[in-house]
C-alpha cells in the first residue's frame, strides 16, 4: 500500500522530494519521509484522495536521533612513486542529530492502513520546527502536544501548543537521549548497583564516609 501511495505522490508532487524509507524487517512496514515544507500539502492530499482516503491519524510519536560519528571508507587514486594506485582511507564524518515526528495513518472508509508518515527536523539543538498536522487530522492535537513536551519539536500552526504531561515551568524534554533526570533516587533500605555507586560517590564528594 505504501509503495502505491509513494508512486502516486511522486506523480502528483514531482518536485516535493518525498522519499520512501525502507523497512528491511519481515513486517516490511515502509514509511514516507516528507520534507517539512511540503508536509501540509501532502497530508491534505492523502486525507482527501478518493483512492486512499487516509482519514484517521491514530498515533503520533517522536524519535530522537542524537548526533553521531560515521566512519566511511573512501577510495581515491593517488600517484605513489610514479605509479597510480588506489588508496583506501577511513574518514570520520559527524552527522548532526535530528528529531523525527512519525504519524500512523489509517483509512476508516477504505479499511486499510497503517501508512507511516515521517517528518524530520534540522539540527536538534537549533532548528526544531515542523508544520503541525492538527489542522489536517484533529486527533493529532494532544499527541503533538505530547511530542512537543517530551521531545521538544515545535509544531508551527498548532492551535494550542502547551506541555501536556509535565508542568508548564519545566524546561527539559525528558525523552531526548541526552536528558539527565534529577538525582533524587538515592534512598533505599538496601541500595545496590548503580544507585549505591552514585550515593557513595556523592558522599565522597561531600567529604562524608558513605
Amino acid at each position: 500500500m505504501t509503495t502505491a501511495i509513494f508512486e502516486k505522490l511522486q506523480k502528483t508532487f514531482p518536485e516535493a522530494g518525498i522519499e520512501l524509507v525502507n523497512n528491511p524487517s519481515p513486517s516490511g512496514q515502509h514509511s514516507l519521509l516528507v520534507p517539512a515544507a511540503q508536509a501540509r500539502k501532502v497530508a491534505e492530499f492523502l486525507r482527501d484522495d478518493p483512492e486512499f482516503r487516509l482519514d484517521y491519524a491514530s498515533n503520533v510519536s517522536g524519535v530522537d536521533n542524537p548526533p553521531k560519528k560515521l566512519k566511511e571508507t573512501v577510495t581515491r587514486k593517488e600517484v605513489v612513486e610514479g605509479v597510480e594506485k588506489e588508496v583506501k582511507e577511513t574518514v570520520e564524518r559527524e552527522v548532526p542529530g535530528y528529531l523525527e515526528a512519525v504519524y500512523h495513518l489509517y483509512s476508516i472508509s477504505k479499511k486499510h492502513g497503517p501508512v507511516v508518515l515521517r517528518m524530520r527536523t534540522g539540527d536538534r539543538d537549533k532548528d526544531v520546527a515542523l508544520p503541525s498536522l492538527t489542522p489536517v487530522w484533529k486527533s493529532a492535537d494532544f499527541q503533538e502536544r505530547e511530542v512537543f513536551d517530551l521531545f521538544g519539536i515545535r509544531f508551527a500552526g498548532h492551535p494550542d501548543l502547551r506541555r501536556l504531561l509535565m508542568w508548564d515551568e519545566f524546561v527539559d524534554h525528558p525523552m531526548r537521549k541526552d536528558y539527565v533526570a534529577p538525582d533524587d533516587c538515592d534512598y533505599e533500605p538496601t541500595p545496590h548497583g548503580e544507585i549505591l555507586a552514585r550515593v557513595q560517590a556523592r558522599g565522597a564528594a561531600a567529604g562524608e564516609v558513605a
Partner: protein
Amino acid sequence: MVDEELKSELQKRGVFIASFEDIYNWGRKNSLWSLQFGLACCAIEMIAAAAARFDMARFGAEVFRPSPRQADMMIIAGTVTKKMAPLVVRLYNQMPEPKYVLAMGACAISGGPFKEGYNVLKGIDRYIPVDVAIPGCPPRPEALLEGLIKLQEKIAAQRLFGPNRARHADRQDAAEYPVPSYGPHDLEPPCNPDVFRPEPVKSEE
C-alpha cells in the same frame, strides 16, 4: 492510669471503668472518614475494600468525603507524580486536626516500580508525615483493612495529656507543611528535610 488487671477484674463483676482518653480515642478510631482520593490502580483496591465483599463499614471507615475539610484521614492510593505532589500536600494542609495519612502501595511509599522515573515522586513521605505504610503492588483489600486496624491501634494509644501527647492535642491550628513548587527541572525543594529523614546509606564493606 487504671491497672489493667484491676480493670478486667472489675469488668467481670459488671463494673466498667475507663479513662477519658480511652473513651475519646474509642470514639475517634471507630469513625474514620477518609478523603475520597485515588491516584492509580491502588484506588481500585480501595474501592473494593469499601464495597460489599470486604466492607470497610465493619471498621467504621466507609464514609468517603469529597472534601478535605470533612476528612480524618487520607489514603494515598497510588503513584504520586511530581505534577500531583503539590496538590496532595495542599489537600493535606486543608484537612483539620486530628489527621492521619495511609500510604497505600509501593508507589506511595517509595515510587515503587516507577522509582527511577523522572516524573515520579519517590514516596509521599518526602513532604508529609505518613502514619501507616501498606506494602503491596497493589495491596489487596485485606491489606488495606489491616493497615486501617493498625491506624486504629495507633489512635487508641495516643495520649491527649502529658509530655508525649499527640500532635493535635498540642496545637489549635492544623499542621501545615510547605507546598513544593514546580521548578525548571524538579520540584523545589525536592523533599522537606523536617519530615524526610532517611537513614544514611551504609556501604557493603
